[in-house]
Structure formats: C-alpha cells, structure tokens
C-alpha cells in the first residue's frame, strides 16, 4: 500500500512566514538561523527564540532526517501518520510520513523531504522513507 494523503487545511500565511511558503512552492524547506547567536530554530519567526535577536535569516534545510516519534490517527475518514521528524540540522518539526504503509514507519527511520499540496493549492512539507 502506497499512499499520499492530501492536506485538507491550508496553512495561514502572513508577512512573517510568507517567504517559508513561497520557498515551499519551489520545493525548498527553509529554516531560520540567528545572525547573533547562530542557532537554527523552527517554526521560523522574526525573532530568535534563543536570544530574541531580530537578526534572523532564511537558509535551506538539507531535507533529510529521521522519525523522532509518530502516531497513526485511526478515528478519521482517511487515516494519516503524524510525526515529529528530527532534521539533519538537529531541530525537530511536526509533519506527516507519506508514501509508505503505516506498518513500515518506525522511530529512527531515515526520511526525506517531499511536498504535498493542500486543498487550497499550497505546497506543505512532509516526509517519506529515505531509501538512500
């Protein structure tokens, strides 16, 4: 069984996060890095959550990582696998695992970035098994 579930909910986009979603349309997952303390954070914001500096810049994630944890929501019309994925950059983000049977998902599984489209047509980052 292979599946890729549509994202029914469009992400709200505002002028603080608009670049993230514009880059997503190009197939790029962007993170924010602080120009002051140099730490990378997620979700992206105008001020660094570690030092509160407003000197934050976008940089592109490698798009690889591994499953930190996951759960398959069964009590819904079309079940889906929600997950926290730890990126190679070291930060962990909420996402979905797609393109594989639920039974194949495991903590520690290597995953790679793909994008699915929300109902309103916005590209949203999710992850699929990374088979090298």
């Amino acid at each position, binding site marked *: 069984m292979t599946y890729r579930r549509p994202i029914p909910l469009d992400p709200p986009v505002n002028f603080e996060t608009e670049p993230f979603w514009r880059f997503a349309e190009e197939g790029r997952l962007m993170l924010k890095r602080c120009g002051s303390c140099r730490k990378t954070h997620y*979700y992206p914001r105008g001020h660094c959550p570690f030092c509160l500096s407003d000197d934050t810049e976008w940089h592109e994630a490698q798009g690889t990582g591994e499953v930190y944890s996951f*759960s398959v929501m069964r009590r819904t019309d079309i079940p889906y696998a929600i997950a926290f994925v730890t990126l190679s950059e070291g930060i962990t983000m*909420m996402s979905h695992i797609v393109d594989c049977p639920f039974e194949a998902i495991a903590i520690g599984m290597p995953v790679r970035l793909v994008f699915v489209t929300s109902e309103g047509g916005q590209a949203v980052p999710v992850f699929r098994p990374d088979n090298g």
Partner: protein
Amino acid sequence: MTRNAKACIAGIYEHPTRLADDKTLPQLHAEIALGALRDAGLEKKDVDGYFCDATVPGLGSLSMAEYLGLDLRHTDTTETGGSSYVIHLGHAMEAIAAGKCSVALITLAGRPRASGVRMLGPSIYSSESPELGFEAPYRPALVSLYAMAARRHMHEFGTTSEQLAWVKVAASHHAQHNPNARLRDVVTVEDVLASPMIADPLHRLDCCVITDGGGALIVVSPEIARSLGDRCVNVLGHGEALKHQRGGEIDLMHTSAIRSGRIAFEEAGLTPDDMDYASIYDSFTITVILTLEDLGFCAKGEGGRFVEDGNLISGIGMLPFDTDGGGLCNNHPGNRGGMTKVIEAVRQLRGEAHPKVQVPGCSLALAHGTGGNIAVRMSSSTAILGRMDA
C-alpha cells in the same frame, strides 16, 4: 506537628452532573460557587477574591463577577488550560499571604458534551497563534500528540501498552464506588487493549472522558480557617512551570512537572515519599506515567513498571491515585481536569473520600494539573496539601 501555611482550602464542590444540557454555563458556575461556599460554611458576601479561566463567558472575570454578584478587591484570570485551577490555588495563596484578599473563590465549569464535542481536535485558540501554519495543516488531534509521547516512551524505556492500561484499570477500580462517575465499570488490562485504537499506541480506554459540569474551591487565610474548624486543609507548597518546543529542541520524554513539582516540594519541605495520596492529571494514561516520573515518585523511564499490578489502586498499591476515578473514568469537566484533582485530594485529607477508597490516616497529599498539550506547549502546576494537624 503543625506546619505553617499561607492559606487553607475551606470549601470544595464538584458538580454531580456529567451532561448539562439543561443549564447555561453561568448557571453551572453559580451552582458550584454556592456548593463550595456551603461546604466551607461561608456566604457570598465573604468572598473578596475571584479566580477563573478564560472559558468563562464575557471579558475575563467581569461578566461572572456581575452574574454572581461578587464584590471583589482581587481577581486573577490566569489561563493555562487544565492546570489553571491548581495555578489559581497557588495564586490565591499568594494573594491571601500578601493581604490582597482573604476569601478566594475559584470556579471551573464547562459543557462540551451538551455542545456535541466527541473528540478534541487541534487546540487552536487564535488565528494569530504564531505556530498555527506549521502545525494545523498536519491535523494534530490532542490524542495524536500524546500518542507520540507514548510511542517514544515505549521506544526509549520499553514501556508497554499493558503498563499504560494499568493506569486506566486503577482509575476504574476507584470509579466503581463513585455514583456520579461517567464510567463506573471496572475494566481489565485486556479490556483496554481490546478497545478501539484511536491514535496508536493509544486506545479509546487510554483516553479520559468528555463531561460537562465543573467544580469550585474556597481558599481562605489561616485566621479564617481556624474559625471554620478542622475540615480546612493547609496549602503547604505550590509550583508552576511552562514548557514548549524550544525552537525545535523537542523532548517528549519530560514535562514541566519536573520544575513545578520541585518548587512545590521545596516550599513544603517534603518529598514524594511523604505523600499518602496523589491526584495526578490523567488526560491520557501516558500523562500519568510521565508525570509520576517527573514529580519524582519513580525514576525517569520507570513509570510503566511503577503503575503495574495495581500499584495506583487504593488499598492495594503503594501510591493511591485519583480515588474519585480521575479524568479517565469519573469527570473531566470542560476538558479540564485540574479542579477535580484538588477536590479529591481535599476529600482524602478530610477523610471524606468514599470509604472503599479512603486512604487510612491520609495527612499529606499532592494535586497535580497539566494544561495544554505535553507534545507542544504545556503547563504544569503542583500543590502539596496537608491536614491542619499534619
């Protein structure tokens, strides 16, 4: 010995309803306020401080103050989800100690069942919440996020579904004696595992009930408590703490109970070993296991083994917990369990819990509230309570 306390709980009331389809939200607040005042032996005119969450009708506490006809010189509408009422208790204690009020009323009421709520979706409180775009598209149902904590706990520590189920089994053993409990049937580990999978590894019976109703507390100064007799309970220590995703440094294996518990135990000069009884927030079975570890009742990772074999069942185990049946079986009014945690701890200390679950000679107890969602943004609050003569 007699311990010093900055404030005392003089009145408690848990609304008996679990489905309030014939009452408005303000009516529920009024009924529980009246119940707690009668329990304390006080009158409405004695109340000079009022504490409530952000789910009350109107702007902050203003509409409820008017509806209830309260004459106030102090108010606090701290909102941290299900832990709010444990935090209100601590804030009332501080306000009383500072002389800002002397009789504080804390109310919680909700009617999610009457409103048709059947499962809690993503907690979206504001269209301007900064995390919204990075979470809502993934449909993070409340149970899904707790399920991910459970999954990770299994991975790191070998915790099993059977161990999670033991938490529910203990709650059900207590709920059978509570005529108001939403679920009164005793269940087995096998029953929990045979219930439908909601968000793996959590089954339906790993989840708390959805109920209407509410509860109230009356918190008073030690001077007033002395005039009211020996049913008052001392607030000996209190702590609160918040935790969030820390810019992506996510850690599902710890809750903010680590900090709130340490602060509360230090203030009380007591340790987990001193507790005769514990009210532990039980939105899901995994919530209890993580919280017991973080409060220091067992080591990190040992929570699953700690709850096995009825260790939380009154009369059987080492740590009687949630003897009213908890949120898992009795009541989770308005999807918020902190109020009932304090109420059952007070019942235990008064010796007024059901005789089948009363802890003999209960003199020191803990009540812990958890708010928000342990996987993303959460709050913890811990109260250490004791009998006046403890």
